[in-house]
Structure formats: structure tokens, C-alpha cells
């Protein structure tokens, strides 16, 4: 077991290395100044406190959606509505941030709880469609993303839009509603603590509770779980509900921490980024912050690269895809894995 997990770490690192190598090759082809561009990509994020702050800011929403996707994937539920749940969480938090009058601390908390409820509902729909009518949660969740995006835009456009602002944005949030900044000269906000709390709670839930155990068993082998008396229908529902809630918290936290008005014009894609984070972290909450930090680092590096050189930041999309495919590839480095297991077994044999 130990050598298996060591192998997983090695495989993840090799996959990342290959993806970065590919990045370098692409840059070599498209850029007039490949070395500068690559250096900006790799070292740019650490070049100043502001840039480092950018990594943390970007990592916060990724932690939430990464947790959201990983809890659903652990139950073997391919629900991708985290995207819509994140968005609607932001919309509902916006309503609360504009219309409520509450004291500081309480105000954002209420807004985030409401966002969590809204996000939970989004993912719950897919779960209910599945247990009631056996409709694939994958397809229904993809459709829900479009539906809730349009619903959110409708709410902002017809009820919360500030006609005096030039663009399609909401009224300003009440001052009390916004999450406060932690470190001067960066936009790192108190949402970081909420993210940390979610990681701990999710870990405890998955690995220290009966429900979490049932969830993981269902994910490993649903028939086996059923035969051993686990109510898998219940697992299907609460795993997706929990995923939606986490994504909703993420959307609400992001909106209240980073903006003073609602201004998303398209789906922010954090839900799909959550898939990348969950895969890098192998669906384990403990590794989610590391994976989110790494992905955020890559994004910020790419932004800096595109600002200073002639390479566009969308290149990251290609690197990410290769990372997902390689990390998720059972056959990647399979021979090496086999060797490691045989070696481990032999050593074990000698000892006993």
C-alpha cells in the first residue's frame, strides 16, 4: 500500500513535468523570445508580493470547487454542475449583499450560507433526477450549468443591475457584506479561512464519519456497498448535495472577497477547474490546497507571461488537459509501477 501511494506521487510529478516540457515546446514554436516567456511562466508568480498574492487569491475558489468535485468523484458521481452551483452561489450572495442590512461578519456569513443552499440545490437536482428517473447526472448537470447561468444573468439583469454603471454589473455591495482583506497590497481575503475550514471538515467527514465511509465505499464498488448494507441511493443524494453546497460557498466567498459588484458575464469556469484540481489531488481533501495552489501558480505564471511576452495565456489550457489525461492514465508508467510493487513484495518476503 505504501509503495502504491509513493508511486501515485511520482506519477503525478512526472505528468506535471511532461506537461511543462510540452509548454516549453509550444512556446519554442510560437514565440520570438521563448526563454524569456518560459522564465516568466515559471518564475513570474514569485517575482513580487503582489504576484504571490495573486496565486493565493486564485487558489481560494479552486479549493472550493476542487473539494466539491472531489467529494462527488469519490462517490463515483460524475456531476459537473459545480460550475453552475458556483455561479448561482455568487448570484445569491449578491442578492444578500445588496438587499440585507446586517452587522459586519454576520452579513457575509449569512450571504455565504444562502449561497451554499443555492449551490446545493443545483447539484441536488442532478442527484434527484438520477435516483428518481435514472437520468445520467453527467448530461443533466452539463445542461443545468447553462440553465442556471441564464437564470443568474436574468436575476442580475432584471433585479440587481445598476443602470448608472456603464457595463452590465449589479449595484454595489453593502460595505458590511464584503470579506475583509488580510494582507496589504494583495487581495487575499478572509475567504482563505473559510476554505481552510472546508478542507478540514471535508477530510473529517470523508475519513472519520460513517457517512463518509459509506460514500467512499459506494464510489469504490457500488454493488459491493449495496450488498454490505449501505444505502447507496442516500449516498448518491448526499454526495452531490455536499458537492453543490461546497461549490456554492465557493461562489459566494469569491464574489464577496474579490469584488464590490457582481460582474461575471460568463460562467467563470471554476467548476471545471475543480475537475483539474480534484484529479491532481487524487480526490483527497488533504492534497486539494496543494493542487489548487499549483494550478493557480500556473495560471498566474501564464498571465504574467502573456503580459510581458508574445505568448498568450490560453496556452495553459493545453498543459492542463495533458496533465489531467496523464495523471488519470492507469496505464501511464504501469511497468514502473509493476516493478515497484514486485520489489516491495520481495522485500516484504525477506523480512518475514
Amino acid at each position, binding site marked *: 500500500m505504501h509503495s502504491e501511494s509513493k508511486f501515485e506521487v511520482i506519477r503525478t510529478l512526472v505528468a506535471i513535468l511532461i506537461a511543462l516540457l510540452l509548454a516549453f515546446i509550444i512556446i519554442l514554436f510560437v514565440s520570438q523570445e521563448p526563454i524569456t516567456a518560459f522564465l516568466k511562466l515559471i518564475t513570474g508568480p514569485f517575482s513580487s508580493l503582489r504576484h504571490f498574492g495573486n496565486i493565493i487569491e486564485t487558489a481560494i475558489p479552486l479549493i472550493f470547487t476542487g473539494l466539491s468535485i472531489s467529494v462527488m468523484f469519490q462517490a463515483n458521481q*460524475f456531476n459537473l454542475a459545480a460550475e453552475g452551483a458556483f455561479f448561482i452561489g455568487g448570484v445569491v450572495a449578491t442578492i444578500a449583499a445588496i438587499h440585507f442590512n446586517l452587522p459586519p461578519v454576520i452579513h457575509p456569513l449569512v450571504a455565504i450560507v444562502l449561497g451554499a443552499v443555492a449551490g446545493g440545490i443545483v447539484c441536488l437536482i442532478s442527484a434527484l433526477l438520477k435516483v428518481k*428517473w435514472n437520468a445520467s447526472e*453527467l*448530461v443533466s448537470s452539463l*445542461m*443545468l450549468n447553462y440553465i442556471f447561468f441564464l437564470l443568474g444573468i436574468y436575476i442580475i439583469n432584471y433585479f440587481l443591475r445598476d443602470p448608472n454603471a456603464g457595463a452590465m454589473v449589479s449595484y454595489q455591495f453593502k460595505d458590511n457584506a464584503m470579506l475583509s482583506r488580510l494582507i496589504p497590497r494583495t487581495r487575499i481575503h478572509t475567504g482563505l479561512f473559510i476554505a481552510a475550514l472546508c478542507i478540514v471538515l471535508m477530510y473529517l467527514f470523508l475519513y472519520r464519519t460513517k457517512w463518509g465511509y459509506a460514500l467512499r465505499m459506494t464510489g469504490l464498488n457500488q454493488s459491493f456497498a449495496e450488498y454490505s448494507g449501505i444505502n447507496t441511493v442516500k449516498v448518491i443524494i448526499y454526495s452531490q448535495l455536499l458537492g453543490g453546497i461546497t461549490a456554492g460557498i465557493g461562489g459566494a466567498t469569491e464574489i464577496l472577497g474579490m469584488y464590490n459588484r457582481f460582474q461575471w458575464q460568463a460562467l467563470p469556469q471554476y467548476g471545471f477547474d475543480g475537475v483539474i484540481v480534484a484529479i491532481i489531488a487524487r480526490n483527497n481533501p488533504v492534497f486539494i490546497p496543494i493542487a489548487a495552489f499549483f494550478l493557480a501558480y500556473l495560471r498566474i505564471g501564464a498571465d504574467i507571461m502573456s503580459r510581458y511576452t508574445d505568448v498568450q495565456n*490560453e496556452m495553459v*489550457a493545453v498543459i492542463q488537459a495533458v496533465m489531467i*489525461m496523464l495523471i488519470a*492514465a492507469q496505464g501511464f508508467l504501469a511497468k514502473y509501477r509493476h516493478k515497484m510493487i514486485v520489489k516491495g513484495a520481495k522485500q516484504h518476503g525477506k523480512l518475514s
Partner: protein
Amino acid sequence: MGNLASIIFTAEFGYAILRVTTPILFAAMAALISDRAGVINIGLEGIMLMGALTGVIGSAFSGSLWIGLISAILGGVLMAMLLAYFSLYLKTDIILGGVALNLMSSGGTIFILYLVAHDKGISSSLKSGVFPQVDIPLIKDIPVVGEIFSGHNILTYIAFLSVLVIYIFLYKTPLGLRIRAVGENKDAAASVGINVRRIQFLALVLSGVLAGFGGAYMSMGYVSWFSRNMTAGRGFIALAAEAMGRGTPLGTMLTSLLFGFADALSNSLQSLRVPAEFVQMIPYIATILGLVVYSNQQKPKKVKGEMEESV
């Protein structure tokens, strides 16, 4: 409601249904062929998007429409091969592989678009060709019927023709039989000497060809340019259409038309006093309803855990 009827019961509306069904139908046929070989192609959305872009680029740089079409197909096939290589040879979960492909495509197309056209939104600086519209002799002179069925883009006719071709391919050729055998029972197929992996690889490549056609239609027929994420979920809708059509070519064509109807409705209703957001929701809501109705009919005794059985 009278207003609604006056929109639906017109020849233009019938024409619009066929027009907007075309990309969904291509993608649904692509979904069908890979599904029948037992591989689910979630990456259709991304494959189609890439095809739409490579088509425009090929056509703009060669000045030839047909090279544009070939480029679109090649773009689709290359993406499909990438998915096939990872899922069949490196054993990447095909759902995750498909998700990765879509992510790659939505960012990658913008990256390539900027390299070629120095724009991150739309390819208007590239002068690409547009597939011609074709009048069908005799039929075009029949009132109403002619207005609905004649004068479509040539790719629209190819899309509907592909339904027949795929039917013949799947049910009347040895290769089609092998594909169905692999999809039906992989182990049984392997036991009679069929190379399962090769058949599935081939099915994914064919699925890339069809999605490439769909992409070509999007950027060189439906409109005459490429714009970011222009496929707008059609690849996903096609998956639902294929599932509802129970994996048969004719059934899938009918369900594609159903979603085409919803899509056309949402285009036509833009003129009514309904918030645009709700009108735009129609195709997506219709897809969920369709999925529920379909799945409910074949409700198994218990809820299945694996995706493969419920998609």
C-alpha cells in the same frame, strides 16, 4: 399563445428546424458510432469546436472550401485520436479524458485563433468560404414543402444522408457488425478474435470525422466565422439525443430534430416579450426533460452506479 402558433406553423420555422438540427445531428451521429462500440465520447463538444476552427483556418489560407472541410475533419480526427490514445492505450478514464479534451479545446482554440487571426473572440479577419445552399429540383417548386426542404446548406443534406449511411454501415457491413459486437459485449467479441481496442479506436476516429463535419457546418455554414465557444453545448445536447434515440440511427435523428425544434423555438421567440434568458434556456430544459422521459421508460430495478449504463 396565438402568437406562438403563428411562429411555429410557418414554412420558415420548418426550415429553421432543419438548419439548427444539422450540427446537433452530426454530433449525435458521432456520439452514436462511438457509443455503439462501447466508448462514450464526452469530448464531442471540444472536437466539434476544434473542427470549426481548423475548418475556417484551412479554408482561409487555401482559398478552397473543400480544403476547409478536410481541415475541419482532420482537426476533429486528431482530437478524437488523442482521446482514443489516452483512453484505450494509457487507460485514462474516458469521461475524464473527454472533460480534458473539452477544456483543452475551449482554451486551445482561442490560443490558436490569436496566433492566426490576432483576435481572441472572433475570426472575422480570416476570409473563409461558406458552403453553398442547394435547391432541390422539383421539390423546390412544391409550395410549403419546397420552402422547408429545399435551399438548405449542402452540409445539412449531408447530415441527414449520414443517418442512412451510418445505418447501412452499422447493420449491413462486416465492420459495422464488429463495432456492434464490441459494444454489446467486449469479452465475447475478443473471444471470437476481434481486436477490441482497434475497433474502438476506429469508432472514435469515425466519431471525430462526423464531429468535424459538425464543426465545419458551425463555422462555414450556420455562420461564416469562428467565435469562441461557438458550439455552446451542442456536443452535450447530442449525447442526450443519442441516449434518447436508444442508439439507433433513425431514433437519434428524430430526437435530434426534437432538440433542433427547441433550439429553433428559442431563436424565434427572441422577438416575443419574454426575457431572452428564459427563451435561451429552452433547448437545455428540453434536453433534461427528454433525458428523464427516456431514462424513465427503461427504468431498471435499481439505480445503476456506472455512467456507462445510464448515459
